[in-house]
């Protein structure tokens, strides 16, 4: 293993870190857009009536749309010379991946926001604050899911690992490299989950009788 680590080119680590920065960039865009859309959908659901039904249907559709297919849809369905309000609307690879994650993030945010708003209405403010760690959890799921960009040539973390792996002829070496990649992705992720768990426990204790966070949502 040490031989492999030593044989890795000097630019591997900087490239990988730059790739991981792209993963975070994609996740930030997806969660910001998701927060905006999700808030609107949550508001619609709480209003009820026809608007509530429409919002619920949209959330169900967005929850069911697979990220990978949405990504290919955006990539192929939007012409390269498309315009929006008279402005060029050509999506970059990063934006394509980020927007493909929006249905998931918006649906997740909508569900979490509905729970939070109901808690707020019920007077359990601390339970409503569980919205924040839930959004944080979604953010890290998005970081991991942004590796789908490897399929369309976006240079994110997994892409850097796969490009390096292609240069290694032996399966053993490739598996060791993949393991290094998992560790490098795993450290921030597990730290984040520990932090989320800590925040949730503190909020739950503070809320005392406030219900625990809802059931986990499926990923993108």
């Amino acid at each position: 293993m040490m031989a492999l680590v030593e044989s890795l080119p000097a630019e591997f680590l900087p490239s990988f870190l730059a790739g991981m920065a792209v993963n975070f960039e994609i996740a930030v865009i997806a969660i910001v857009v998701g927060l905006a859309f999700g808030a609107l959908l949550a508001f619609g659901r709480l209003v009820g009536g026809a608007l509530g039904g429409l919002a619920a249907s949209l959330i169900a559709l967005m929850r069911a749309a697979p990220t990978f297919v949405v990504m290919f849809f955006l990539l192929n369905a939007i012409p390269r010379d498309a315009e929006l309000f008279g402005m060029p609307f050509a999506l970059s690879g990063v934006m394509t991946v980020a927007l493909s994650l929006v249905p998931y993030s918006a649906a997740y945010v909508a569900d979490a926001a509905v729970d939070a708003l109901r808690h707020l209405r019920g007077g359990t403010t601390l339970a409503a604050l569980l919205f924040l760690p839930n959004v944080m959890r979604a953010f890290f799921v998005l970081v991991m899911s942004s590796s789908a960009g490897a399929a369309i040539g976006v240079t994110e973390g997994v892409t850097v690992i796969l490009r390096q792996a292609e240069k290694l002829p032996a399966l053993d070496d490739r598996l060791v490299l993949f393991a290094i990649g998992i560790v490098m992705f795993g450290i921030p992720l597990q730290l984040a989950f520990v932090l989320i768990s800590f925040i949730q426990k503190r909020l739950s204790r503070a809320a005392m009788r406030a219900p625990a966070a809802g059931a986990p949502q499926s990923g993108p």
Partner: protein
Amino acid sequence: MPSAICTSSRSARLARATDVPRFRRLVRALAGIVAGALIVLGLALSGAQAQVARSPDAALETLLDAARESMPASCAQADADRLVRILCAKRIRIGVRDYYPLFGTRTGDKREGYEIDVGLSIGRMLGVQVEFVRVNAATRIPLLAEDRIDLVIATMGHNTQRDSQVRFIRPHYYQSETVVVGRRELPVANMTDLPGRTVCVTVGNGSNAQLVSQGARLMLFDEAGVLPDRLKDGTCSLAAQDDSFFANYFKEPDFSAAFFPKFGFAQVPWGMAVARQGSEQLARAIDLIVQVFHRDGLFIDIARFHRVESAFLQVQQRVWRSPECNVDTGSTNPSCILPPLDAALKPTSFAPEVTAIENWAAKEAGIDLTLPMLKTAPAWSMFQEGVLNSLILIAGALIATFVLAVLFGAAMAARTILVRWPARTVTVVLQSSPIVLTLVIAAAIAHGLFPYSGTVALGAAIAALGMANGCNAGQALAEAVWSLRAEQGTERARGTAPGMLRGSGLFARALGRSATQIVAFLINAAKGTPIASFIGAPELLSSLTDITSFASGRVTTYSLLLVFYTVVVMLVVWLCGKLGVYLEKRQARIEEAGKVTA
């Protein structure tokens, strides 16, 4: 004597009598000679006139004169041929590539390349200005059909499939073959080395179908110009494109040192093209112009100027200088022109009905519906296979997730740390691995054990999706087991325990308690199945990507794909919801029975 005189007198009379016919004969002979000479001269003149009329130059002049004579009256006619419209507008719109080194490149407003100069030469022959319009492999035919360009000169290979979409100009103006390029150290020597490998190609390239039929996975790009960069940065390990395109790059020492043309296939002549409708005279005019360019060596001059390989053009010059071909009918003479590459795909038995539906949708609803997966036999077969494999993949991923959830749950709920901690470690590792990486690892191990095949890729994808989701669901199940044990411990301490649940009883109750989480991860597994295409699993996304690489209709195709997967996932959500309700009711019954027993 008298007789003699008489004879002589008779002779004299005879002499007198015979002088007239001789004169007449002389006159007749002279008249015949003159007439014959006139006939010969006339024939000679008419023959010479016919020879002039049969040259492509004269035919072109006649055609252009006729078109100009009809102006300006014909300029306003809606059904005027494009040639007339071009002459009226004094402008021809030519579709060219923006980024195809040596043939068509653009730097700011400056365009250059072999095809650019050919386009300008055609404009000069027609006496009109040239307006260049950017096209790529995917847009060059639609732009012609939409009347946004008059002529396309854009590295387009002439194959039988495209013959039904555009009118190709004959003779062809270039010829190339598709070459597969990769790093020198990559062990690829021919088509048999391609199965399981990803080849970067441009959408609409005529040779894509051949690559797909050999088991290669395709990564699609709109522009050929990005392929060398994608090879250099490692996005593509192999790229397939015309040899003419890579020729320029192989002149670069760095590129040549790192990459090598592995093999070539699908030799194809390049043709300019015009729209099939309303361009008869334009097509004829450009046929003749191209003939003249070949004969006069203009193509060779332009090619040499741009450092383009000219061997094909030299052969063509010899052909078009020959008396047999240097006539106005040369472009229709099979011994002068090259046949198109035979790339016609066998249509399905219901292709006419599909076309009728497409036309109806366009006419009645204004919807640009294109269903390439239903129109040709190979595409239809790939589509069916893709749907079937997707359903197998989804079913397999659901089963694998559930089974592995139970196994992980049992292991993580075990009282001995020898079982519990390895299971937890594997769970943490799987949670820390992006799903794409998990899939790649599964595929690498599977291909290390078995030779590459679509079935192996499907199996690896099912295992990866099952592991990734099963471990999370198993964790929820184990937590439910531990929480039940804790509750039972508390109740026993209080002396209110209704009866200790152990083994399968406890596990069944934990299954009910963690039903919501398990269902969430089952749905997640179903949603994740399209990612399997990344490792070459022949599911629907993979199949449709292959189909759209050689057919049109990307928007419709990917819209249908999105609808298919969304509907299937919603169906899975509904079924899983039923499963969740069943498990929760079961748990409620068990708890009720427990209370009754207590």
